[in-house]
């Protein structure tokens, strides 16, 4: 079989467009956002293939397969419901606690899964980083896409819970789209910073699980924002996740428009942070292969 292939002349075909570019020593002043984004866009097929690969590999050779995407938020919901509703009597603004917690866990899990996986992405795929060129931000991005897939699967479960608890959606549910966009920007910004830093300092990998746990308690996931004492609230809302999670629950469960002040604050912080983190990531990327 292999023998016959020797005489198999492969066609040589190539496009006419020859890219022409210059490689220079890294410099923050040479950062060109548009050039980087257009390069990233050229690699959209890689983002897609690698994201699919993340999802496939995760569920391959496991008996329950895709069911794990349901099981994780369900089990967290059950644990939190048991502890905070039956034992600790957490307030939930008149909403059944199970769906109250689950609705917030959905975007929270999306965020924490993204950050946890993306942080180690560059180190885990070191063999790609040292052998092949492609925009390195693709590695953290694909983990975020995979986490978004889990989010979509778990959303089906949320729909089931909404029907079970007879909670009607209003037109305000359309706010979910911009809220998710803000959340994705924020998750991406944090992922870029952590993953780039992890290349040099493995401490980040150790600190992230702990940090995410503390962050969960500093965000209105298992309790409502209204339970935070008023005098601390102006400080508390500096956490961009507050506006995101609270808005998500408002538009889905209460059918109300989100608190625009909080959401806008989260959006502005996310966009600025995303820009800064991209700048930082690209600077680290230049010599990443020397350290990873």
């Amino acid at each position, binding site marked *: *079989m*292999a023998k*016959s*292939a*020797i005489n*198999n*002349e*492969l066609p*040589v*075909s*190539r*496009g006419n467009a*020859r*890219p*022409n*570019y*210059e*490689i*220079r*020593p*890294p410099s923050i002043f040479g950062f060109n956002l548009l050039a980087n984004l257009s390069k990233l866009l050229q*690699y959209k*097929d*890689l983002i*897609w*293939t*690698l994201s699919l*690969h993340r999802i*496939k*590999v995760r569920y*391959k*050779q496991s008996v329950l397969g895709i069911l794990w995407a349901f099981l994780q938020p369900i089990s967290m919901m059950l644990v939190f419901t048991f502890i905070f509703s039956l034992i600790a009597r957490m307030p939930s603004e008149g909403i059944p606690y199970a769906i109250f917690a689950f609705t917030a866990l959905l975007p929270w899990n999306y965020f924490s899964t993204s950050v946890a996986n993306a942080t180690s992405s560059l180190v885990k795929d070191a*063999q*790609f*980083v*040292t*052998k*092949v*060129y*492609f925009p390195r931000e693709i590695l953290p991005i694909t983990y975020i896409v995979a986490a978004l897939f889990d989010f979509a699967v778990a959303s089906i479960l949320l729909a089931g819970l909404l029907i079970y608890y007879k909670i009607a959606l209003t037109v305000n549910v359309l706010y979910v789209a911009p809220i998710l966009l803000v959340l994705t920007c924020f998750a991406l910004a944090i992922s870029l910073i952590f993953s780039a830093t992890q290349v*040099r*300092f*493995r*401490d980040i990998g150790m600190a992230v699980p702990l940090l995410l746990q503390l962050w969960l308690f500093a965000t209105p996931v298992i309790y409502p924002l209204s339970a935070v004492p008023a005098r601390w609230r102006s400080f508390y809302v500096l956490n961009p996740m507050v506006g995101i999670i609270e808005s998500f629950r408002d538009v889905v469960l209460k059918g109300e428009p989100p608190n625009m002040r909080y959401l806008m604050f989260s959006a502005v912080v996310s966009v600025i942070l995303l820009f800064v983190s991209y700048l930082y990531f690209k600077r680290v990327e*230049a*010599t*990443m*292969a*020397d350290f990873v």
Partner: protein
Amino acid sequence: MIDLKFDTVSKRYRIFKESETEGKRNALGRLSRRLRGNWSDFWALRDVSFEVSRGEALGLIGQNGAGKSTILKLLYNITTPTKGRIRVNGRLAALIEVASGFHPDLTGRENVYLNGSLLGMKRSEIRSKLDSIVDFAGVSAFIDTAVKRYSSGMYLRLGFSIAAHLDPDILLLDEVLAVGDAEFQSRCLERINQLRRAGTTIVFVSHNLGAIENLCDRVFLLRHGEIYRSGAPRYVISEYEHMLTSMPAATAKGLIDVHDAPASEIVSVIFYNSEGRRTTMFATGDAARVEVELMVHEPVEDALVEVYFYSIFGNIHSHFSTEIDGPTLDLQKGRCIIEFDCPQLPFEVAAFNIESSIKLRGSSFNEHVDYKRTGSINITRGKPVHGAFHTPHTWTVRSVAPPDSDHSTPAVVRNVD
């Protein structure tokens, strides 16, 4: 038309010294080392400038650490220069380590998509080339099997086949001929030549000097991060051979226990071809005469002399010792030459590092009077090798005529060697 241009490019690697108590990735440790200035700088390239024209094939040779792979890494944008500028004009692809982007749990088909897109192919491009990739690799029957079930040969062939389907304007090749069997290597060369005929600009790094000579228009000999010699392949390769044989041979310290002042020293190990010309290039099946020159400071009784052929990855390929089939050596003070004759070198196409040792009979494997890396040789295509090595052989047919015929004498129909 210039496709590649290096303008006074330098690349520095900063090596932080590690102490026992501080972890390498420990932030505080790093910070303190940084403040104390506890590092050393290694310049992998120093002010290197050159241009490569469209359709030209440039070869890079030199010893490990000379800067060959750094040039490729900079071109491929895996890392960036510390100083200088690099201009690239064209779509660039690298055939560096085939199959490095494979995931064992995914099927052959899924891996083709994954690896192909890592190398910069579009999904539509991969889809249209999938059949051709699979055919070329000869793994059609197993395309929906997880690649962890593949043999290493299938793995390599599929990896190469994907890379071979890239159609870049500029192709970077790093030691592609160092893996796989002879057949696989000849297919690599076939494809490379084909791309070359189609006008692809090529930068080729290899220890295989024969392949460099066959493929390249121009060769650079790198040394300590600088272009030491450049020009026609024949000239630069002979300069390199000269450099290797005339250089004070490096001893493999740390691995082997060598005395500070050996009682006898290996001066050189020099290869001669059948015409008696000194060379490091042989074809499979060529005769070789090897002269091991010794300088004996103190008389050594019952000594053994050994010649090792190592692959460039450090695997031992062959080991010849006077202990097994040589004369008894009682070395007297002064110069001494020991000759080793091999009527047919059996090796497949590859580069070999030659190491040599003097030892005492009965000493353990790492106790040497002297041990040296004494250069390298290159084996090019000669006698056919299908498998690991060539061996002299003949074919004979014993009965050609029907059994009832009168002519029952055996007839030799084909005779190899």
